[in-house]
């Protein structure tokens, strides 16, 4: 991130356009459909174990214990996991809770049947730049983001996810 001194120096040099360009370049790009999802394994997440994601369809959900719709989404993700895990769907629910105890209490209460990881330093979510809480990213077998669901809207979101997961699972896996 460009610091205030750099911006000030640019402004004082009389180049406001250069300062603005430096600011824009310093802002991380938001993960969008078509972009490669950042490697989850390299993000230093703690918590549960994540299954192998290479060549799989991955649903990455960013949640928090203080977020009501996040709590409502977990039963739906449990149903999706039960329906599609054997066919190659991996669900990774990433908590952005700063409090480890809040994360642990939420997981202990809901006992989700899918991987719940903890981004305690909020490193991954900063890179992804989620637009709202919760947000889920559906990643295809090649590791590219194909669908993004900002928020969770009950049956509507679950219905859309089912259709999209079916479509992605039917695509061929990349050659090793």
């Amino acid at each position: 991130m460009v610091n205030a001194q750099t911006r000030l120096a640019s402004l004082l040099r009389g180049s406001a356009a250069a300062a603005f360009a430096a600011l824009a370049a310093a802002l991380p790009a938001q993960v969008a459909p078509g972009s490669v999802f950042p490697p989850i394994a390299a993000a230093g997440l703690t918590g549960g174990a994540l299954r192998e994601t290479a060549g799989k369809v991955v649903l990455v959900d960013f949640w928090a214990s203080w977020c009501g719709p996040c709590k409502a989404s977990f039963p739906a993700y449990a149903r999706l996991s039960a329906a599609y895990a054997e066919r190659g769907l991996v669900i990774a629910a990433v908590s952005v809770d700063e409090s480890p105890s809040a994360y642990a209490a939420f997981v202990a209460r809901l006992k989700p049947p899918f991987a719940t990881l903890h981004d305690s330093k909020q490193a991954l979510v900063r890179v992804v730049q989620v637009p709202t809480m919760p947000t889920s990213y559906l990643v295809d077998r090649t590791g590219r983001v194909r669908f993004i669901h900002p928020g969770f809207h009950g049956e509507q979101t679950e219905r859309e996810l089912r259709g999209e997961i079916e479509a992605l699972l039917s695509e061929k896996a990349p050659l090793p």
Partner: protein
Amino acid sequence: MKPLRARFLAIAFLGGAAALLGGCSTPAAVRVRPWERAALADEAMNPDRDPLASAMIEHVYFSREAASGGKGVGGSGCGCN
């Protein structure tokens, strides 16, 4: 005022203004990111977390101020409560 001193003051003023405006333009200073809203989502931040207390406060308000309807309650504020 001596020209050198006036020039120094002008530079100091412009520098201070630029620093303030630079601070205002910092993206993190104008928006709490979605994943940073744990404290804002806390129940303690809900101004209407006690419906009974809210109803009483509202009753006192519109009885005293003759402002019925001024806070989401139907009515014309006729002062007849």
